[in-house]
Each structure stands twice: as C-alpha cells, then as structure tokens.
C-alpha cells in the first residue's frame, strides 16, 4: 500500500510542526491548517485520505471541520487527536463523523498505525475513548424506534472493556478467541451506534458522570 495522504488541522503551530516531524516518511502530509475555515477549504481542495483533526479549536472546533467536509467529500476519513479529556468534546467529535480518537501523547508508531486503520475504514478506539463509550452506554436503553442502536451487545462490551484495560486489538482477539477482523467489526459497529444513537445520555452524560 502506498503511504497515506494526510492532512493536519490544529490551531497550535508548534504541535503541527511536531506531528509533521514525528510522522516523517511514514505518511505523505499534503497540507496543514490552523483554523476551521481554512481547513475546510484546503481539505476540499486537496482531498487527503486521512485528516488528523484537533478537537478544540475556535469557531466550531474539529466537529465543524468534520461535518462540513463530510457533507461534500464523504470519502475523507477523520481521526481526532486531542489533549482534551472532556468526554463531551470527544463524543461530539466522534458523532460528527470521526473514525476514532487518540490523545496527543500517543507514540509516533501507534499514531501511524492508527492512521492506517482509519484509512482502511476501521475505527480507532483508544482506551480512554472505550471508557467514555462504556460509560455513555451504561444504564437502561431509552425507548427508541431502533433498539439495536441504543444498546451495546455483551460482546461489544467485552471488546470495549479489554480496549479500555489497555489491550491492543490483537490481544483482544486472542483473549476472546476471535479474529482481529472480528474485533474490528465489533469496534466499527460500536462506532456506528455511537454516531447514530439517539440516546439522550450521549449528549449530557458527560456532565453528570454519576456515582452509583
């Protein structure tokens, strides 16, 4: 496979330069933007395969970049990259259409691997994101037209739990006695539920991560 064409969006120039240097030859960085509007315009123009997007930015943040670009260019894949630990921001970015979320402290090799996964259409769940999702989908499902979307299957829960515990997909597969491909299918299914679910908790659960 050729090296992925990657676009970077971050309002911190220093961080842009750092990521660019870290990724080095592993990917083809076709451009970078440091504000939302410039990013939308440049991504539409250059049509990268994967966009690394910061969650926190003025004028709408990563969620707006994702939403706007996907409207006209549905093939572009987004990977959220952030220092933000605030669950509501992360979930909002995923619901806008990002294929995954990793923190900025991720090791360069892991970041390249995550870019490859996202490019292939898979979801990338960091332990933290897995924890957020488990938390968000806790409790009883709300009455909904499509109950499928509102609840995680026991298997999906198991997969997420292992990811949250720090397991790589490969280790999850071995632990559960399934193939890596199946793990990826489960994770993608969770991502879809996360994006399409109408669970009202998703919108506000973050603010009241309740004590039980």
């Amino acid at each position, binding site marked *: 496979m050729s090296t992925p064409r990657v676009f970077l969006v971050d309002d911190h120039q220093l961080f842009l330069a750092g990521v660019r240097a870290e990724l080095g030859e592993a990917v083809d960085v076709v451009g970078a933007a440091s504000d939302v509007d410039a990013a939308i315009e440049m991504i539409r123009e250059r049509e990268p395969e994967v966009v690394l997007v910061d969650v926190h930015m003025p004028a709408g943040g990563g969620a707006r970049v994702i939403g706007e670009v996907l409207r006209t260019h549905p093939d572009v894949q987004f990977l959220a990259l952030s220092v933000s630990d605030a669950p509501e921001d992360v979930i909002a970015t995923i619901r806008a259409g990002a294929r995954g979320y990793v923190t900025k402290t991720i090791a360069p090799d892991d970041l390249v691997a995550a870019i490859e996964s996202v490019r292939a259409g898979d979801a990338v769940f960091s*332990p933290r994101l897995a924890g957020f999702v488990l*938390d968000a989908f806790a409790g009883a499902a709300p009455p909904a037209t499509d109950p499928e979307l509102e609840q995680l299957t026991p298997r999906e829960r198991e997969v997420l739990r292992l990811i949250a515990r*720090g397991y790589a997909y490969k280790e999850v597969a071995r632990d559960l006695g399934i193939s890596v491909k199946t793990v990826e299918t489960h994770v993608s299914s969770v991502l879809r539920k996360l994006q399409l679910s109408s669970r009202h908790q998703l919108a506000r659960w973050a603010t009241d991560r*309740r004590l039980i």
Partner: protein
Amino acid sequence: MPPGGPGRDHRRVNGLQLRLTRADFTRPAEGRVVAGVAAGLANAFGLDANVVRCGFVVLTVASGVGVLLYGIAWALMPAAAVDAPVAPRGNADVVATIAFGTVVLGVLLAVRALGLWPGDVIVWPLVAAMVGLALLAMRSAPAEGETPAALPPWPLLDRLPPDTADALAVLVGTRRGAIARVVAGALCVAAGVVAFVVTADSWHALRSAFIAMAAVLVGIALVIGPGLSRLAHALVAERRDRIRADERAEMAAHLHDSVLQTLALVQRRADDPREVVRLARMQERELRGWLLDPSAPAGEQAAAASVGVALEQIAAEIEDERGVPVEVVRVRDCPTAGMEPLLLAAREAILNAVQHSGAGRASVYLEVEPDRTTIFVRDRGHGFDTAHVSDDRGGITNSIVGRMTRAGGRAEVRSTIGEGTEVELVLPRPNGNGSS
C-alpha cells in the same frame, strides 16, 4: 497600589512623631540662583525649584514678606555638601497644579503692575478663595488605569511614621481624600470671603464682597457638581478594575508558581528525557485540574470524594515519583467509603507495574457496577512466572491478594513472560443492591 508602596522604606521610620531635621533643609551647591534657598526647599518638598522661586517673587511683590522669609530660610538652612544627592523631582501632576496657581498669581501681578491693583486687603482674601477653588478643581478621582493612592515621591514622606504616611496616601488618592480636598477648598473660599468682608471698610467693598461670594458659590457649584458624579463613576470603575486586577494577579501568580517553574526545570533537565516527561505530565495534570476547578487546592491534597478521583491521585503520585506514565480510564464512579482496601491494593499493583515490569507505561482501568467495583492494572513489561513467586515477595501476597481477601474481595494476577502482567482487583460494594 497599597499605601507605602515602592519608593518608601518604612524601616527608616520608627518614631511616631514627625522627624524632620535641619539636614532635610539644605541649600544645594548646584542649581542656585541667589543663595540656593528656593532650590533647597524644592528638594525637600520634591517640587520644581522654579515654582518655589515664583512663590517667593509673588510674596515679595504682594507684600514684601517674600524677602523676609527668604532671609530667615537662608539663615536657617545650612549649605549642602557638594556631592549630596539631589532628591527626585516631584510628581508631575502636583507640579502642574502649582504651576497653574503660579500663572494665575503672575496674571494678578501683571494686573497690579498696570495700576489696576485694588489693594492688598482685597487681594489676599481673593488669593485664599482662588486657592480654595484650585483645590476644588483638582481631579477628585484617578483616571482609568492610574494607580489610585500613589504618593508623590517626596523625601519628606519618608520621614513620616508609617501610619501617618498611610493616612496621607489614603487622603490623597481616595474618596476620603477627595472629600477632604473639597472641604479644604470650601474652607479656603469661605476664609477668603470672610476676610474680605471683615477687612472691607466701605459699604461699596462689602457689596463687592457679596458679589464675589456669589460668584465663588456659583463656581463651587459648577466645580463640585460634575466632580461628584465623576467620583461615583470612578469609584465603581475602580472597584471593578481592582477585582479584575486581583483575578489577573491570581492567575499570573499561579502560572508563575506552576508553569514557569516547570518550564525552567524542563530546560535544566533537558538531558534526561524521562525526567522531562515526568515534569511535563505533572504540570499538565496540575494545570488541567486548575483550569477545570480553580478553587481546588493545587497540591491535590483535598481528600478524594470518589474512588475514581482517589485512583487518579494515586496514579499521579506514582507517576511523579517514578517518572513512568500511568494512564487511568474510568467507567462510572462511586464514593470511597468502604473502598479503601481496593485503593490500597491498586496502589501496590501500580507500584509493582511501574517498578518491576520494565514497561514504559502502565494502564489502569476502573469500572464501577452496582454490585462491585473492579480495577485492572496492566503493564506490557517482561512479566514473571506466577507459579514461582516466592512467598517472601510480600508485595503481591500480602498487600494485594491478602488485603483483597481480607476485605471480602479477590485479586488475581496474570502474567506472561515477555508480554506483561495484569492484576485484577474486585471488591463487592457495600449496600450493593443495584440502586444507582
């Protein structure tokens, strides 16, 4: 600025009375015009020498008193040593005010020279009235952005006892100061008018006095009216600015104590990547906590209310001590009550992962379910053979497994050589009846 701000050293003052010595009034060697009296007085009071000279000239022209005073001062003031330091110039604002007064007096003198002088009996009360008006016209509150209670750097002020100096500062720059000024101005005006009336010997003069008094009263009304409303506005603005400044100062102090210190440390430890990472993570955590909840104590010393918070504190502590990142993922949370053994065991497990596994990081996962709380501690270190752990490895047997068993829970250690170790800790929740 608080009273007694920069520029004044209270340690020099220990008595409670005004300590003025003759040494304060010396005639400098340089900058003399006649005998240096004016320059010496100007130094002592922090004024421009020309202002003092004008004063002498005016007093001389008006009644001859100026020459007499100059002579007395000359006699009393010793000549200064050649290299004696020259006091700094006074506050420009004060100088400007006095200069204005001097110009007014100069105009009066010109009038006198032209032969229109009505006589000293009338002039002195008029001068008093005008001084009063000048006092009234002085700015009653500091303009935006100016320090409210800064005292002019007069050397004399250094000689005042702190209490008196502070009181002066308050008087000069605050509402009470403004009121005092208004009162003083009004008194001057009144004194001038009264002197006028008392000394005037003809009905004609008396009538002039009434006219003058009426003019003065109108003037006062004109001066005070806008001043009062300005004063009220200025007080509100001052209060708002002070609150804003306080917030800013608090943030600046915090950033200085935390971020800047850490950045300095990072630069000094640049050759030790592990230490740099440790410092950066510690600072990140601290700053994040402060941004999310500024009222929380910076040192995270507050007792943790929930297991999740306590666990993050434990992880942070170990991270700081050992320089190995510990990532905590939480799914739901519960109060710490009854969960102490779990937290202690988790602490031991994290320490083991960080100290003995050789891994570059450790993952901690907390999940709270209605009936139990589970913690996983995982590392990707070199692992060990769990079947061959000798009993003297008290860390695992006592601190972890034993503790959990005694508390009614369980602990399980899974390790694969070359792949890492995972410790699972499970503790049933007290009153774990599923209520949420």
